[in-house]
């Protein structure tokens, strides 16, 4: 293990480390802690300049309910879920199929196709913006939740395919070979043999894609216009304009927007980190 385990150092070093650890964490999260404090302040604190110190009173319930009663936040939240969940299901399903095909079958187009999926996953969004928006307008999908879902699912298929293909490639190929010799059909092999084995990969992808899509802002601004289909990220920006100088409400809304991905991360931490690193480090 590197660096040297702290237990092997002197008592003083160990003590210093344990004291410094929470201090370092507080410094690291200072911007976030400041906004947490702001979100529970009464508005008078901000007007009198008490923004750094202890809140003069705690208005947790008032501020957080005000976000919902004074704005469209409920709609934004629902939209975020309506966009994120179908996208996760669709892109992960597509990638299970394509990843399986690219990992198991040996055909000449396999590697070039795989590389196209990988490359597509890295392109800047702006090169897609004008045609995708135009396509959405023409098909009536502009400013709809469905339009966002279809685009996100398509785009995330690149990353998911990369991930799935590498995961399936690492499975023992003998299993599939022997199933084929037994005469099991190709789709049955996929459904009954491979799918159960890739469950960890599905979990990892699901949490990652959930976070990516929930946090998307660019496509939310490009493909939506009204309140009806706006997700929370675009919503928070709208709130920022609406709640000018009401920093306590903007803070509360921002923190609320961060809750689902954070909860997802803490609940599925193992899968989340496995996903981030496995998709990356082979």
């Amino acid at each position, binding site marked *: 293990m590197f660096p040297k385990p702290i237990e092997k150092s002197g008592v003083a070093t160990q003590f210093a480390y344990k004291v410094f650890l929470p201090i370092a964490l507080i410094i690291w999260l200072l911007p976030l802690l400041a906004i947490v404090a702001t979100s529970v302040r009464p508005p008078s604190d901000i007007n009198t300049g008490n923004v750094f110190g202890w809140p003069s009173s705690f208005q947790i319930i008032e501020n957080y309910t005000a976000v919902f009663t004074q704005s469209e936040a409920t709609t934004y939240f629902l939209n975020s879920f309506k966009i994120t969940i179908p996208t996760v299901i669709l892109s992960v399903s597509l990638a299970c199929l394509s990843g399986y095909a690219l990992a198991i079958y040996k055909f000449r187009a*396999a590697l070039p196709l795989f590389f196209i999926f990988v490359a597509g996953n890295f392109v800047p*969004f702006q090169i897609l913006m004008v045609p995708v928006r135009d396509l959405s307008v023409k098909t009536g999908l502009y400013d709809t939740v469905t339009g966002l879902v279809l685009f996100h699912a398509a785009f995330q298929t*690149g990353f998911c395919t990369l991930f799935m293909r590498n995961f399936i490639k690492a499975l023992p190929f003998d299993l599939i070979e022997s199933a084929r010799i037994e005469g099991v059909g190709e789709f049955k092999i996929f459904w009954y043999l491979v799918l159960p084995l890739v469950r960890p990969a599905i979990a990892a992808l699901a949490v990652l894609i959930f976070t990516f899509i929930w946090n998307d802002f660019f496509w939310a601004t*490009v493909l939506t216009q009204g309140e009806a289909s706006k997700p929370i990220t675009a919503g928070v920006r709208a709130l920022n304009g609406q709640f000018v100088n009401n920093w306590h409400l903007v803070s509360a809304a921002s923190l609320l927007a961060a809750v689902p991905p954070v909860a997802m991360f803490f609940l599925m931490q193992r899968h989340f980190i496995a996903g981030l690193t496995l998709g990356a480090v082979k």
Partner: protein
Amino acid sequence: MTATALPDTDPPVTRSWYARNKLAITPWLFLIPAMIFFLIYVIAPIFQSIWISFYEWDGLGAAEWVGARNYVELMDDDRFYTSLWNNVLWLLLYMLAVPAGLFVALFLNQTVTGMRIYKSMFFFPFVISQVVVGLIFTWFYNPDFGVVGQVWQFFGATPPSILGDERYVTYGIIAAGLWPQIAYCMILYLTGLNNVAADQIEAGRLDGAKGWKMLWYVVLPQLKPATFIAVVVTVIGALRSFDMIAIMTQGGPYGSSNVLAYYMYETALSEYGYRMGYGSAIATVLFLIMLIYISYFLYRMYQDEKGAR
């Protein structure tokens, strides 16, 4: 009865075309749904955008072919150069996330009680949306009531208006962007450190290596895959920077914090006009820059794939 147990020795003529070509057809059946989606929404739009960049088009009326005029105009566009330069700054300074992430990972790679909680708390900034990070830092930097303002006033100095000053604004946004990016690199390195071979460390210790020498000669070579991915995601993050700029400054003051991604959006889709062709030309430039990195990444992958066979 025994004949069916020995397949392919005497294939019956009645086998269907599908049965005979099963292994050649099935992969395409599995691939088609993903390919259709990807083709419509990712591959085709890239070429369409490049095509549109040769037109003058407002997105509604008829498009007018202008040849390379949009690109000629780009060459004289000061706002384009400012954005390009800012992208270079983003690329260079964003790279600090890699060593900083390594540093934090080394600091946290211990087994004190509660360490897992600490690690996840340090990772926190990466999980929250960049929109929220942007808002947090807008407020953090505010000279009147933000944390920066309060700290400066505490020392009796006049606080700088970081986001309102052309000299500081880009650096301010990059610093905000580094916060989640360092967390990302940190997690990559923490996983990497987990997989560092213990016997090599011990061997290094026996040879008298410690501290920086151990890090440089023994640990870092083993962290190469983590470093590679950290660099790749950081480059892509730097070139994709859009959310923070849209939230914190909208490219201002006077376009001084613009980057290509935001400038493209502003040109094609905002109150400044709907110049789809010119916007697409900017996007094409950004795409070509990214293509260098994509090619490098694919080349590396190709080498790995060849080695794996």
